């Protein structure tokens, strides 16, 4: 007789308004295994897990824990059913101690003294058992991200969770921290705990899971044994077609250097050095791709080049545009635009667009002081609209209604608004961050073509993306960033994904490239 699976989902469906986030999902997770759930952004992974944790009620379907149907009405019910969740964005009270965070919501009785004492003992035991060492009296806000994640795991274990769900746990971790996490997860599994790992990183799935389920557009498209599959097959399942991210582009003919960065360092307000001496140069007519795991300084590099360094940061080094040095400190966004730097920011919703503004207003965002938009002391709204209408037509933005608020467009069309605005200024240098994050396939191709066209017109492009495929397809040269440094330079034609992967993990390949820009 085989034991009942730890979790079984039958026909789970959930819609948010017109969006079907989950459609008739079936899932079986055997006890004592690590089960991966993989899929692109927006595939419905997080929604499914939120249902399992009682954050949402499913529209239809059944949840069985250890073979018994359970109703999970809220988080309390999920906790009672032995489910613990580690969210992508930690749910910790920053100015509470570790102990207080662990106890919150799982207190023994009305008074704290006893709860805290018991928790202290528990934490000591768990630390010894699973390698989950954290100072119980430290304030959470003083802990590193990796340690904060441990607190989240400890919270779940303190509540006697048998099933642990981790949502994109390594997105914010350094490779060393991620390895430590995986060691912890393995020892938890060996103790009989069941673990669900949600990720979009194929490497992690292959490294640690027994079984893997693939989600696409709200549906569960496959559940297989990890040993019986490979990254290529999984990737294909994820996107629903062969991953052939090939962009037709003529050979690059690089000209004179447009942007030169030398010894750029940045220490943030907390005193952490985020950039540790970046040297790079981009020439006219080339796309320089920066690959790397998110959180290794790419965001800061883009912000500094775009002229808005993080508040409280200390900068040093030199940035030259067309040979002329640019001032580093203060808010330089306006000056950078005037100097000919366009910028498609990583986060279009928080930075690139004013979501409540209309499309036509957004098409001038950042350039609202451009002379062609002024008429005497007033703004020429008619000129703004005419300009926007042209961009909407040329970029095939749908629906073609300039009066619609940005928030009413799909992700792909929102991104097209930003790209249209920045590309059509015909900048000497275009900074591009995660150009196709959360963007549909059709829009991806369109945006890629526009970036290549800009390059072919003799402009310089700095492309930052965490999608290696995108970098490989678009870039003429690739720099890999790790921990605030450039780890090495490769040409896309010569580099292999494995080689770039080890650079992204901070490992210098045995045969270091002579003459690379690596610093």
């Amino acid at each position, binding site marked *: 007789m085989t034991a009942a699976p730890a979790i079984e989902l039958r026909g789970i469906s959930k819609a948010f308004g017109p969006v079907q986030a989950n459609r008739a999902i079936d899932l079986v997770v055997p006890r004592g295994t690590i089960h991966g759930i993989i899929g692109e952004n927006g595939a419905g992974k997080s929604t499914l897990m939120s249902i399992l944790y009682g954050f949402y009620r499913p529209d239809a379907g059944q949840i069985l824990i250890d073979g018994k149907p359970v109703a999970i009405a809220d988080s309390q019910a999920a906790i009672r059913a032995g489910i613990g969740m580690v969210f992508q*964005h930690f*749910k910790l009270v920053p100015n509470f101690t570790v102990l207080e965070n662990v106890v*919150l*919501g799982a207190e023994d009785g009305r*008074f*704290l003294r006893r709860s805290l004492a018991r928790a202290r003992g528990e934490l000591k035991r768990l630390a010894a058992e699973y390698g989950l060492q954290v100072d119980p009296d430290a304030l959470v806000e003083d802990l590193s991200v990796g340690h904060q994640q441990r607190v989240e795991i400890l919270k779940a274990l303190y509540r006697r969770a048998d099933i642990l769900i981790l949502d994109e746990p390594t997105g914010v971790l350094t490779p060393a921290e991620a390895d430590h996490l995986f060691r912890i997860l393995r020892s938890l599994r060996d103790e009989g705990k069941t673990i669900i790992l949600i990720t979009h990183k194929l490497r992690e799935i292959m490294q640690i899971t027994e079984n893997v389920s693939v989600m696409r557009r709200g549906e569960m498209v496959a559940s297989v044994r990890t040993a019986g599959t490979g990254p290529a097959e999984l990737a294909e399942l994820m996107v629903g077609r062969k991953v052939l991210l090939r962009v037709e582009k003529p050979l690059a003919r690089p000209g004179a250097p447009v942007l030169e960065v030398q010894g750029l360092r940045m220490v943030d307000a907390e005193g952490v050095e985020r950039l540790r001496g970046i040297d790079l140069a981009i020439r006219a007519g080339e796309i320089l791709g920066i690959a790397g795991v998110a959180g290794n300084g790419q965001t800061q590099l883009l912000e500094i080049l775009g002229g808005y360094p993080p508040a409280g940061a200390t900068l040093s080094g030199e940035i030259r545009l067309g040979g002329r040095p640019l001032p580093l400190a203060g808010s330089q966004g306006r000056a950078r635009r005037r100097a000919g730097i366009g910028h498609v920011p990583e986060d279009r919703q928080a930075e690139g667009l004013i979501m409540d503004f209309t499309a036509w207003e957004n098409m001038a965002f950042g350039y609202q002081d451009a002379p062609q938009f002024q008429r005497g002391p007033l703004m020429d709204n008619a000129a703004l609209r005419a300009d926007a209408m042209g961009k909407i037509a040329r970029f095939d933005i749908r629906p073609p209604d300039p009066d619609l608020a940005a928030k009413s467009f799909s992700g792909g069309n929102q991104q097209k608004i930003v790209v249209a605005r920045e590309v059509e200024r015909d900048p000497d240098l275009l900074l591009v961050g995660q150009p196709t994050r959360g963007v549909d396939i059709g829009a991806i191709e369109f945006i890629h073509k526009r970036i290549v066209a800009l390059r072919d017109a003799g402009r310089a492009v700095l492309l930052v993306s965490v999608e290696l495929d995108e970098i490989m397809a678009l870039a003429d040269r690739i720099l890999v960033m790790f921990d605030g440094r450039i780890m090495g330079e490769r040409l896309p034609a010569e580099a292999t994904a494995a080689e770039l992967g080890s650079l992204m993990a901070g490992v210098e390949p045995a045969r270091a490239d002579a003459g690379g820009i690596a610093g």
Partner: protein
Amino acid sequence: MDFATLIQILDSAVRLMTPLLLACLAGLYSERAGVFDIGLEGKMLMAAFASASVAYATGSAWLGLLAGIAGAAALAGLHGLASISFRGNQLISGVAINFLASGLTVLLGQKIFGLGGRTPSLSGAARFGEITLPFAESLRPLPVIGPVYAELVSGHTILVYVAFAMVPLTWWMLYRTRFGLRLRAVGESPASVDTAGVSVIRLRFAAVMICGVLCGIAGAYLATGISAGFVKEMTAGRGFIALAALIFAKWRPWGALGATFLFGLMEAVANRFPNLDLGVVTVPSMLMNALPYILTVVILAGFVGRAIPPRAGGEPYVKER
């Protein structure tokens, strides 16, 4: 200034600080739970009116107190409805509550008593009397300790002692009980509380209602303790001074005691010396009256010890998708 005058001023400061202290602690519960409350003034005013009316009608200060608490709690419930249930703007809700109280008290007062918004004067059991503590008289002859005990410590209404007792009680609740832990958490990071399986809405409502109860006591003290009846707009900005004191106290119970004492003392001094002659300069009473506000701005500016409000304050909680 002789010793007797000092005692008198301190005694007066204790009386004047009591409504501030109660209102300040009221605000502390609400704001520590993440619900900003600029409607302390209105809740106090409503409570003052309700307590004076019922105390007059029944002849019982205690029934008046209950009515005051009910009146303030009703407005607190409205604030909760608007800012927690319907996720409305907490500041705007507070403004509305202040006006509602200001208008309703006069409207109802005029209807019931026909005295232009006042209630008739209260006397006897309709007011909270001063309590003489044991041995107050026999200890009086002792130097220093005697007058301090007899004049300053003894001889206040029960509500004054309630207010002072609320300080350690609030501290204990906040830092030593489950409720306090959750309350502080919900003002800093409601998502943590929610994912821990605790209802954010219920916690915040509890905090807002406690705030209402304390405002109710504060209002009752104003109308049936320190004075003898309700007068139009009798809170006279005390709700806002309490708010200032809360910031001054950095949202901490013992700090609230210190801040409200300081502000009460300023008022007492301004009352006693309309033009305080410090030898070199004469401080007009207007400056003394404005000093709590000026000091609060200085504190807010962060030039002297930064005041950081609860992180989730002012934001209605919406589950993330």
